[in-house]
């Protein structure tokens, strides 16, 4: 098996051995497989792409075809130790509702997303006058699935207004390294390409 992507490895590091985990937007199941192999988690996934779901089931994972906007409401409360939403919240129709569902379903919630406050994004819009296209955000404005992009500061504000406690915050650098950050600091909001938050409902 190839090495886990650095941001996924950082997420995996936050998860306790044997936890019940729901990975929303689990892709081809790389993280879930890693977690069940190394941390013996009881893992479940939700994935939009049917091809990815089939790949997950073929590798023995428990994954349901569905999407975060429509299907999370069906899940009972507090059934998972950790709910993961990796690089997906910016593509949901109702990020606020999705986050509320995550906080309800899991005792802990991990959210990672690309930072629209990164200096390259800001500079690109300022200098070029076009919607930014960067390495992390490579789409045109008219075909991007990322319909609700936010900055780190934006996400922190949403998390707090949703009644979440921020237990950990990590900045993702351009090289894939992760560094602990203070959620309110202005530096990471300018310099981090993405962020990972570990949240807990109050």
């Amino acid at each position: 098996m190839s090495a886990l992507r650095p941001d996924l490895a950082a997420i995996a590091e936050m998860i306790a051995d044997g936890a019940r985990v729901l990975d929303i937007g689990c892709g081809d199941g790389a993280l879930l497989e890693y977690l069940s192999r190394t941390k013996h988690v009881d893992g479940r996934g939700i994935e939009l792409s049917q091809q990815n779901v089939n790949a997950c089931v073929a590798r023995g994972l428990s994954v349901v075809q569905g999407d975060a906007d429509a299907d999370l409401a069906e899940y009972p409360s507090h059934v998972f130790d950790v709910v993961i939403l990796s690089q997906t919240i910016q593509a949901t129709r109702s990020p606020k509702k999705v986050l509320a569902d995550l906080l309800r379903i899991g005792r802990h919630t991990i959210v990672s997303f690309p930072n629209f406050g990164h200096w390259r994004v800001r500079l690109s819009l300022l200098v070029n006058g076009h919607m930014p296209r960067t390495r992390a955000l490579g789409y045109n404005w008219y075909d991007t699935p990322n319909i609700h992009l936010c900055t780190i500061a934006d996400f922190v504000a949403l998390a707090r207004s949703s009644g979440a406690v921020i237990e950990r915050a990590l900045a993702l650098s351009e090289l894939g390294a992760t560094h602990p950050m203070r959620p309110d600091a202005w530096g990471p909001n300018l310099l981090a390409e993405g962020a990972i938050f570990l949240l807990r409902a109050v």
Partner: protein
Amino acid sequence: MAELGSPKFLRRLEAPGVDQGRAITFDRPLVLDSGRELSPLTIAYMTYGTLNAGKSNVVLVCHALTGDQFVTGRHPVTGKSGWWETMVGPGKPIDTDRFFVICANVIGGCMGTTGPAETDPATGKPFGLSFPVVTIRDMVRAQAMLLDALGIHEILCVTGGSMGGMQVLQWAASYPERVISALPIATAARHSAQNIAFHEVGRQAIMADPDWKGGNYQLEGTQPSKGLAVARMAAHITYLSEAALQRKFGRSLQNRNGLSFAFGPDFQIESYLHHQGMTFVDRFDANSYLYITRAMDYFDLAADYGNVLAEAFIGTKTRFGIVSFTSDWLFPTSENKRIAHALNAAGANVSFVEIETDRGHDAFLLDEPELFAAVRGFLNSAAASRGIK
């Protein structure tokens, strides 16, 4: 308590030399959902592969409406291949080199298990319509009696498509402690109004045949072949899809250059359906068709649990894998997804796969590589969880 023997078949055997499986007769009655009792009860079944020492490698296959216990290999009655030859066998997704596969003919059936064509010991005549109406749950109870008699408690995986999938769901709801994993394919937790409607068309076709004789055709020496063939033709359309019919047949004519301006089979699709009807009456009993379609119509799993499907699965440890097909309009993805949602709500361990195909409901019987990969992966993972190599 139970006596083991060879099954008796209604029809002449096309392949008398092949394995005919076993039949077990119970001296205690099966109490049915209707309140009536079925006694004596005989269950005809086939097994494939070898039961391991721990009796932990059992895969129970549940057959569909017109299926039977001859899952794979040559069928003794028809002489053709078993209905799930693509799925079950050495090295196949349900690998008989690893797993001990059991399939039993359902009660009400006509391949050796007690059904309306059998002789009623009380009268010495065939049951006909005096046979009690049975349900999916009755079928599952009968299978549980069979497994008990075989000394098998735990089922590694119970699987089947269509009506087989209904039995899978019933197994998981009725005997959660016995079912390690459940793999219902192209099914529903309730039979829809549209599906009941199609079944009623089939039943009315059978009963409208003068040779049906009020269900007493065996005594009268007739066969309601025309009615049964029409029932099969109508049903067969529901197993396919518009796209598949168009691709396979279109408006192609059958052995002619132009329209006949008469009512013979001008079109290939017509002669295909005729063929489906004709071959079916050679192997199936008309009254069995009435009883088994009725059992499907009566199936509504949530009804036994206050109309909340999730309640059927609360606290279950069973792993579930649910499969649907995009072009299946008889048991559409929405019905299968409803099961997945209920299982999620019950906190169960569930996977759900929708497979892209234009072959309609019948896709579960056909060569569908994505289906095979999903079944293989699901079964491997269940086997690994029980330490089965």
